[in-house]
């Protein structure tokens, strides 16, 4: 462990330190604002140190972590997302009874877990990152433990995530026994069918079991069943966290180690991915079709979006990695924005997630409603928004690998998807009945922090949707090594 290694790890270290500091500060004196500020400062410091870390990359830190441009890019994304979540959580938690401060500590830990996951190059670090993330999420989901729904969601997530960890571990064990190495790079070599490195039955079985664990985190069909319940039950900032940081980091990992050069193409595991992609797109969108709870609706839509992402994933070639990365970025921005707006609107004790609560929002809060519409349109993949370009790149990736079936499923299912986004839009813009007095959506001011983060998200949404060239260059740069 050299000094350069430490420099490379500095964002992770700073982040973990912040989590500790926040915890200590709570021990000294409880203050919501202070904890949030500390968390933000820590995230900012960690983000700033990315530049510093960039000066010594790429670098393999011990056998466990690989810090390169790809890692740093995702770290940056995760840190920025975490910062946005902090801002949104602050305004949300202000209205909640009970302790608020620990949320930041747990959240930072979850983010740290995500960072580890992205950087991991070894089964052990993979597992550690996975678990740091999971365990923090258990607590975060059930954070409002005095309410029934979060608790129920927490228990469900706990049981299922632990089970999926068991699957993951068992799979890793099988692979280890087959290959004799826990280095993910070695594994990738096996997949690539390097000489003298063919996988036996146990190896493939292990791969499938690992996929179960990873698929659970990504919530792809058939490992998706938990998603709506957890999304619905968890407090909104946690939901945002699950939807963005958890999925983002796991997908980054998947993309790096399982994608190499489309090596999986044609193998049974590749087919498994194809089936997952198609089933996720269809089932996710179909499930959301008549959903009246917006959180559940977004949960189902997230299943579908993971399906779209999988299309890019199963495609071969550099375009695929870039498309997947772009899509992921667009998606997390959008979904974070959507949950952010919901959390700003639902500033009461009770969350307002029923579709009816949003009726006529446009005529009351035009700016927020317009932002929400933009997010929905981005999810639906309509031009001007990042979501459109994301879908465009995914289609390009799919088309360049001639994945016709998946593309047609994509077309059909995103049309189904459009239907329920439009349903929400219709409600947003529909007229209010005369006697309908809105209690749920007070005409309060949007808190500055949350407002700021929302504004940034919306701007990013349009910037990435309209002028993707610089971002595309960046993605091309960092993904040069992969795929």
């Amino acid at each position, binding site marked *: 462990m050299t000094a350069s290694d430490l420099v490379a790890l500095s964002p992770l270290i700073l982040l973990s330190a912040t989590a500790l500091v926040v915890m200590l500060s709570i021990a000294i004196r409880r203050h919501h604002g202070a904890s949030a500020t500390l968390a933000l400062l820590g995230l900012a410091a960690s983000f700033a140190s990315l530049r510093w870390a960039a000066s010594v990359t790429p670098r393999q830190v011990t056998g466990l972590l690989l810090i390169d441009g790809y890692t740093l890019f995702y770290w940056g994304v995760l840190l920025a997302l975490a910062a946005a979540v902090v801002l949104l959580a602050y305004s949300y938690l202000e209205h909640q009874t009970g302790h608020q401060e620990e949320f930041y500590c747990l959240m930072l830990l979850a983010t740290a877990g995500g960072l580890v996951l992205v950087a991991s190059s070894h089964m052990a670090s993979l597992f550690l990152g996975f678990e740091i993330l999971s365990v923090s999420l258990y607590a975060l989901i*059930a954070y409002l433990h005095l309410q029934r729904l979060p608790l129920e969601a927490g228990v469900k997530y706990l049981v299922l995530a632990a089970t999926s960890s068991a699957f993951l571990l068992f799979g890793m064990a099988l692979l280890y026994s087959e290959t004799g190495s826990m280095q993910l790079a070695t594994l990738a070599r096996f997949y690539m069918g390097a000489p003298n490195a063919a996988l036996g039955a146990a190896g493939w079985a292990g791969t499938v079991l690992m996929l179960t664990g990873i698929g659970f985190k990504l919530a792809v069909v058939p490992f998706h069943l938990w998603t709506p319940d957890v999304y619905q039950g968890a407090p909104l900032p946690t939901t945002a966290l699950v939807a963005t940081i958890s999925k983002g980091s796991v997908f980054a990992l998947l993309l790096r180690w399982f994608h190499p050069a489309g090596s999986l193409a044609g193998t049974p595991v590749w087919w498994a991915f194809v089936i997952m992609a198609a089933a996720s797109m269809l089932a996710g969108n179909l499930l959301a079709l008549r959903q009246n709870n917006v959180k559940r609706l977004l949960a189902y839509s997230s299943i579908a979006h993971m399906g779209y992402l999988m299309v890019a994933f199963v495609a071969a070639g550099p375009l695929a990695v870039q498309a997947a990365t772009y899509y992921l970025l667009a998606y997390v921005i959008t979904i974070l924005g959507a949950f952010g707006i919901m959390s700003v609107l639902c500033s009461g004790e009770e969350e307002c997630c029923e579709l009816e609560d949003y009726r006529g929002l446009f005529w009351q809060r035009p700016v927020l409603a317009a932002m929400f519409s933009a997010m929905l349109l981005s999810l639906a993949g309509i031009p001007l928004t990042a979501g459109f370009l994301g879908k465009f790149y995914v289609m390009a990736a799919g088309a360049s690998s001639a994945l016709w079936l998946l593309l047609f499923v994509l077309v059909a299912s995103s049309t189904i998807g459009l239907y329920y986004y439009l349903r929400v839009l219709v409600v947003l813009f529909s007229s209010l009945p005369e006697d309908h007095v809105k209690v749920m959506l007070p005409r309060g001011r949007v808190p500055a922090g949350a407002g700021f983060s929302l504004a940034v998200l919306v701007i990013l949404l349009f910037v990435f949707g309209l002028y993707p060239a610089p971002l595309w260059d960046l993605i091309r740069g960092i993904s040069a090594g992969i795929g």
Partner: protein
Amino acid sequence: MFLLGLAGLLTRRNLIFTLMCVEVMLNASGLAFVAAGSRWGQVDGQVMFLFIVAMAAAEVSVGLAMVLQFHREHPTLDSDAGDEMRG
């Protein structure tokens, strides 16, 4: 052992049993790691086992706390009682 845990998970409704079954599955994986490590003559498997045990402990502590709270809300430990959210 893994399958045993899985079977228990799927059949038992009591949350405590559910948690125990998960533990069984985790331990099964740990054992598998140790066995694999011994196959290749490496210590890595045993290291992983340690990680697993530590993580299982963390998990169970959070899990039990939640189950407790759950029991307070629902006067049962039946996991199927928690089905307020569905559809």
